[in-house]
């Protein structure tokens, strides 16, 4: 066993770090650190910065404009970005649709669409979930009926993250009601400006706006927008879900959250002493650090294994469960570090300069509530347990 990174990997880390130092503005990093909602322009400009170095599409092979990194390099890149408080890369075009097209798309689809993802011409969002189809995705009902060279789509998608900024949406739609439910699903690309589409905002628990409902009524989409084979979209959906799970452990983000938590506990005073000297609170931080240390190692074990092949479903599910629970615990601790000062609505408190909490922590409660989503989306933690149980019991 050798638990060290290779000299090449260390050099790569140094290169990423110095790039971030030179190219990530203080202003943007501060927004990310303070948990402020990022606008479209913030995200687009950060994507463009990464693309200028060819580092935007971390999972894409070189021939399609990616950096051609292996899993360990991607991990190092992600970790450094998190530690520098870089904005998270919006994954729908880059991490999801890109790999799907590279595997299932026609040459024309790849040539038309991939460059526009890289240069930011198209913002994509993910249209999978429906009001009646969440964990049970295969029960989706949004219907696409063929009429000449078009599909006519009717139905509704929901929980569409950042759909308010999107130009395009990739959808799972039902093209057949025969046979098994999984067999009548197709993967279709839709321009969100097509007549008949309406995007409505959903306000989340903490008051933020990042998800939407998307309604389709008689939306006409050319059949050439089908990806892969009609009625075989489920294969793509499953492929995409495994992609969605790489990096799902969120080790980089949790490492940064732990740093911030410690800094906060050093800064805040309780009973005349820094909070970090309070044995009860310090014990909670220490436990979180222990859990994260183990997760880091599990994640690396998987990454190094996966460099040769795909990580098993079970391990990916384990990383998802443990990674989200650890992150949620860190958010909980940051909120609790503030005591009652976590309560004021962050934007009001900051605007009126009333915050009792330091600015970088004023949104702690909001982030805590918002990140309850982590154990719900991307396959809920219960669904992940079902996957692991199947593996253990072989049923």
């Amino acid at each position: 066993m050798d638990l060290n990174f290779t000299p090449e990997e260390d050099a790569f880390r140094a290169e990423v770090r110095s790039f971030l130092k030179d190219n990530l503005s203080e202003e943007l990093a501060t927004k990310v650190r303070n948990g402020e909602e990022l606008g479209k322009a913030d995200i687009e400009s950060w994507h463009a910065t990464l693309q200028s170095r060819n580092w935007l599409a971390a999972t894409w092979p070189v021939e399609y404009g990616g950096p051609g990194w292996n899993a360990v390099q991607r991990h190092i890149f992600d970790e450094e970005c998190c530690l520098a408080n870089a904005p998270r890369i919006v994954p729908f075009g880059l991490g999801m649709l890109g790999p799907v097209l590279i595997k299932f798309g026609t040459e024309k689809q790849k040539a038309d669409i991939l460059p526009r993802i890289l240069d930011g011409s198209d913002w994509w969002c993910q249209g999978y979930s429906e009001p009646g189809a969440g964990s049970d995705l295969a029960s989706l009902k949004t219907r696409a009926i063929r009429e000449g060279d078009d599909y006519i789509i009717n139905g509704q998608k929901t929980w569409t993250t950042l759909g308010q900024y999107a130009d395009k949406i990739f959808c799972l739609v039902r093209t057949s009601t025969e046979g098994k439910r999984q067999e009548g699903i197709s993967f279709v690309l839709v321009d969100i400006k097509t007549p008949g589409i309406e995007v409505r905002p959903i306000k989340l628990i903490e008051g933020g706006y990042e998800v939407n409902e998307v309604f389709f009524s008689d939306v006409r989409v050319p059949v050439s927008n089908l990806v892969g084979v009609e009625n075989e979209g489920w294969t793509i959906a499953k492929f995409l879900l495994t992609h969605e799970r790489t990096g799902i452990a969120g080790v980089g983000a949790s490492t940064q959250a732990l740093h911030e938590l410690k800094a906060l506990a050093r800064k805040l005073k309780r009973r005349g002493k820094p909070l970090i000297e309070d044995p009860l609170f310090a014990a909670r931080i220490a436990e979180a650090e222990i859990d994260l240390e183990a997760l880091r190692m599990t994640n690396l074990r998987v990454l190094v294994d996966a460099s040769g092949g795909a990580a098993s479903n079970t391990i990916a599910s384990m990383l998802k469960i443990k990674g989200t629970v650890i992150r949620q615990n860190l958010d909980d601790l940051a909120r609790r570090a503030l005591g009652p000062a976590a309560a004021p609505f962050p934007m009001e408190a900051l605007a009126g300069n009333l915050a009792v909490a330091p600015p970088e922590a004023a949104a702690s409660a909001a982030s805590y509530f918002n990140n309850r989503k982590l154990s719900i989306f991307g396959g809920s933690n219960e669904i992940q347990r079902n996957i692991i149980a199947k593996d253990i019991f072989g049923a």
Partner: protein
Amino acid sequence: MNFNQTDDRRMISDSLRRYLADQYPVEHRIKIAYDAPFHDAKKWGELAELGILGALVSEDQGGFGGEGFDIAIVFEEFGRTLCPEPMLGNLMGLRLYAAFGQSDKVDAIIAGTARTALAVFEAEAFTDTSEIATSATQSGENWTLSGRKSLVYGGHAADTLLVAARTPAGKIGLFEIEAKAADIHSYAMIDGGGAAEVGLDNVSAKCLSGDAGETIEAALDAGRLALCAEAVGAMDVLKEMTKDYLMQRQQFGRPIATFQALQHRLVDLSIEIEQARSITIHAAGAVDTPGRALAVAKAKNLIGRAGKLVAEEAVQMHGGIGMTWEYAGSHYAKRLTMIDAQLGDKEDQLRRVMELMSA
């Protein structure tokens, strides 16, 4: 032993329950709780008419209740509807006015014609009155206060404030000021309802007591008991909502309530809620006894743990719906989470229990 409520209390809690269900349907609550003035000011007089405020102090102090069980029934009903009226600040203020014999003020508050709030904590003194830095200065008969008070619950809707401040003798005194005389900035809290930052720059004050530390602690414990009862009410409702949702939501061709993995989790919530109810009853029975501090600290610790569990599990078992503003359950979850942070969280209470245990 007898765990039944007296008829008088049952009448109050029944009429309050009906009133709140009628006047604070959850959509209305969500509409008013997050925008200034963060409550429905017109309703205060009606609540007073129902006898809610009188129930919070004893007969010889001008009210007609005042025991722990009286406090608990009122706040449990508040918890059931997430009522955002600033009752917590008035409870603590009322008990302090009563303790220091201010019968005019007690009468006015009970009648609903005046409102008050207790300003104790500061940015670096959130759990413990011993760290209070706000100072009281005396010149002749006149007192003035300087400092800043944070997270004053109900401070946005009070006519007078009761302020804990350090006296020249180094004691914690209790002072009354006109709210108008202070620099008050109010805001919504993330779980709804209002609070205020209170700036004090040589504000003239009336001294109610030059050594009020113990009495203030007792009022804070009454407030902690109230929060425990409020949490029990909110937990009951959120658990019911979750049960209903599990029975109604279909995935994989059947109600998700049929998945045993989820059933067991709802069962665990039910067990913790009964524990929460029991420890709250225990604390209610102890508020006027020497065991007050220990009993209340135990209750608030357990409530903090149970509230977080119920909130997190309810959101999780609802899936995406539980994450939305529009769904009432998310507001119950926020309230249950943030109750822990008020008047000392579960860790603060644990510390108190550890100290009192070994004393």
